[in-house]
């Protein structure tokens, strides 16, 4: 195992597990500043997690095993997905490969577990949230695949490590397909992190929330696991976006610096869009996502035409 692989593996595990909560924390802090408030510290998610970890969990009645296994299962699927995401073009081999479609499958497993748990508690707000989440997912998964196909074009396959390496340098930026893919993935970023204009992470007004809804019944360590998973999902899509669609050059060390810069830029971008955008009407979101999909098709057409000429 080379030094780069070991370093990438360390960033995957330590970064994914320990730095992930920093991302939503930073976004919240930056957003507060942009809105002229002092806001919470970027470390607030850690304090929340510590507090929750010390509290006991609640078992609403009547629920089954499905409700109780959901938080560990969601966290496990998300943690495995973390191990598939390449860091700075290097994909350490954990025996899980680094396939983009497997990553999509693992995220779907987490979504299933959380939606099933909301049926189990029977809570109306949880079901409302998962109903909307699953509706968006139908369109978001199509969009995600379209964006991944565009990123996979130069690499000739869906191995995330190869895709990140193929995005290295200035070459990809001369392809319109890359630009289209970047726009499409930006929309994926908004959906998967549950940000405005698609979802509002700040709201606890029951009728407007999506991702928060299914978490309402959980408490204590269960809630800690679920909140960590939400933070880890931020990490996954932001690192992927930085690795596949933000410019980066050079060897592993340089790329690592670009990755760090990319994460900061994307967090700042999310904070900015949170500040400037109002929440969209829920029924308009699929139209937006389909628009992204169409753009991806245009991107593919330019690539294929370019290849055939």
């Amino acid at each position: 195992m080379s030094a780069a692989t070991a370093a990438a593996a360390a960033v995957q595990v330590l970064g994914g597990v320990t730095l992930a909560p920093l991302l939503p924390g930073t976004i919240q802090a930056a957003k507060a500043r942009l809105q002229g408030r002092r806001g919470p510290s970027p470390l607030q998610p850690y304090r929340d997690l510590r507090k929750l970890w010390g509290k006991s969990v609640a078992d609403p009645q009547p629920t089954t095993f499905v409700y109780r296994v959901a938080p560990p299962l969601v966290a496990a699927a998300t943690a495995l997905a973390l191990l598939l995401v390449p860091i700075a073009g290097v994909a350490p081999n954990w025996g899980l490969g680094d396939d983009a479609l497997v990553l999509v499958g693992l995220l779907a497993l987490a979504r299933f577990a959380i939606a099933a748990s909301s049926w189990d508690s029977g809570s109306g707000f949880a079901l409302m949230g998962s109903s909307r989440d699953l509706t968006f997912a139908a369109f978001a998964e199509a969009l995600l695949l379209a964006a991944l196909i565009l990123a996979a074009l130069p690499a000739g396959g869906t191995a995330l490590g190869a895709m990140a390496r193929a995005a290295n340098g200035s070459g990809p930026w001369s392809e319109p397909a890359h630009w289209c893919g970047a726009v499409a993935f930006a929309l994926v970023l908004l959906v998967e992190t549950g940000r405005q204009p698609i979802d509002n992470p700040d709201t606890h007004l029951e009728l407007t929330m999506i991702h928060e809804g299914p978490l309402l019944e959980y408490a204590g360590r269960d809630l800690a696991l679920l909140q960590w998973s939400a933070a880890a999902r931020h990490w996954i899509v932001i690192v992927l976006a930085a690795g596949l669609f933000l410019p980066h050059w050079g060897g592993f060390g340089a790329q690592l610096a670009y990755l760090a810069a990319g994460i900061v830029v994307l967090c700042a971008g999310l904070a900015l869009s949170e500040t400037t955008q109002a929440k969209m009407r829920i029924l308009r979101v699929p139209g937006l996502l389909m628009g992204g999909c169409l753009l991806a098709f245009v991107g593919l057409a330019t690539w294929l035409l370019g290849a055939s000429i």
Partner: protein
Amino acid sequence: MSSSDLPALAGAVALALGTLAPLLRLRLDFALALQALGVALLGAAGAAVLFGAAPVGSGFRDGIEPALGIDRLSGFFLATIALTALATLLYARDYLPGHRGASPLVALGGLFVASLCLVVTARDASLFLAGWELMTLAPAAAILVRGHDAPVRNAVFVYLAVTHVGGAGVWISVLALAHYGALSGTGTLAAHGGGPEALVLVAALIGFGTKAGLMPLHSWLPRAHPVAPSNFSALMSGVMVKVALYGLVRVLFEWAAPVPLWAGLALLGAGLLSALGGVLYALFQHDLKRLLAFSSIENVGIVALGLGASLTFAWAGDRTWATIAFAAALLHVVNHALVKACLFLAAGSFERAAGPLDLDRLGGLLRRMPWTGAAFLVGAMAIAGLPPLNGFASEWLTLQALVHLAFGPAVGLGIAGMVAAVGLAATAALALFCFVKAVGQVLLGAPRRPEVATAEEVPGGMRAAPVALAAGCVALGVVPGLLLPSLAAIAPDHTSLAAAATISVPGSGTFPAPWLLVGVVALTAALWWARGSRRAAPVPAWVCGQPVDPRLGWTSAGFTKPVRLVLEAILRPRREVVMTEEGGVLRAVAYRGEVPHLFDSALYRPARRRALQGAALARRIQSGSVRGYAAYLLVLLLVVLLAVRVGVIG
């Protein structure tokens, strides 16, 4: 004579005896055991051939010379039939006694399984078509034995009418292929020009496509599957539609090969329509068995996507991906057979234990029926395409094939590949939606009907069969990489794939099926342990302080409402609210809403109307007068003579 001959022969005999046993008034247990023994032997012979033993029996013949045989493709389908049928026979042992008409149902079940085996082992046109017709008629008879009130009769009529009208395509294509010597491979279809080729391909796509339930030829499927006894539903949805796909594979990949590009693209288009349409309509069903039937259409669509991609790759000269797409399609065939049989059998148990399968009136059955419930949960997760279960493995492979099609041998094909890939991704997400809803409404939450709250777990065989099938789903999810080379070896002009636990197709980041299972289970267990067992006292669900009242429980329509509203322009849902006021006070609100099946109203109903009008027209020339008929004969004779004179015939 190869080593598999004897078991195959013995199996056929045992299956025949088991089918006849109820007629001889032998014990039903004994008959079912004989049938199980027979189908197990046949399946073992099939599996042996699939995994490399010499083919059994004769090869294909063009004449009317009845013969049987097993080659690799037949072996694969025989093994799939056997796995599913064994579970349904086990299930039937406890399900049929006490059921109305148990004895004829046992006989018909045996006949049904035998006819399925006959279709895949027939080696000439006559036996193939005989098996084909029996396969259609046996379940129709079983449905009528179960009950024959007007809606059921109507369902059976639609089933027979649609599959027979469509089935004409099967007769045309198979007989034409035999005529051109294409069954045995002595002649080729292509040698006779584009006309016969187009005729055979269109007839085959329509004929086999109807029976497979490909949209828009699927109208019979969601009517017939739910009304059959559950062990028949499992076989119909699990295997019968797959046997239709067997016919399609034979024609497109063997008898009429190499086929032109449009056949591959037509299959891709029909597959995408079926996958998306099937899952969309499944989402809006309120009856569990109807939901499962629509989901079968979706999965047949996924198989068709794989087959279409394979044909397209073959046309473009990419042998590797043609092989992978073909193997993906076959893998999905066996995966879906197990999953769908598991779900239908579990649904039958729920019906037996708790009454009608209206989704909005079930709930909490996982506590009452832990075994059946757990099997249903695993099956639902598998069919939703979640790792590390078997449904994910075949969907991953199919998706890989479509993504590589998008990389494009040509601009048009690339776009087609991406449309199909994106459509399949949306299908998978919608299938998750649909089956979360089914799991939630059937298994989880509070019971919404008194009979559901007191449901009892079903006895022995009815419990064991779905559990065994669910275990099969887990097992197939772990070892798809070991099965894949044998499936790839069936493809015509194939490249060989390496057998390995980790599936690694070119240009993928590898799919390590067993390690995913280990990872998910181990990490979940570790986190479960880390969370500890410290729990507060049991509390009622909080729901922001609202009491959870069963009347406030979510319905199927409520949960799927966002999709219904987003796709309003396509689905055209109907909604009706009637408010009753008395003296300015609102007394009652009646609400009715449904998502109508547009294929029925926009396609089938007009077609039926036209057909009836045509029949009325034809009746006018049936005057009943002998002189009239003599005149018709005379005119016909003159036309024939004229045709001979001109040289059109003769």
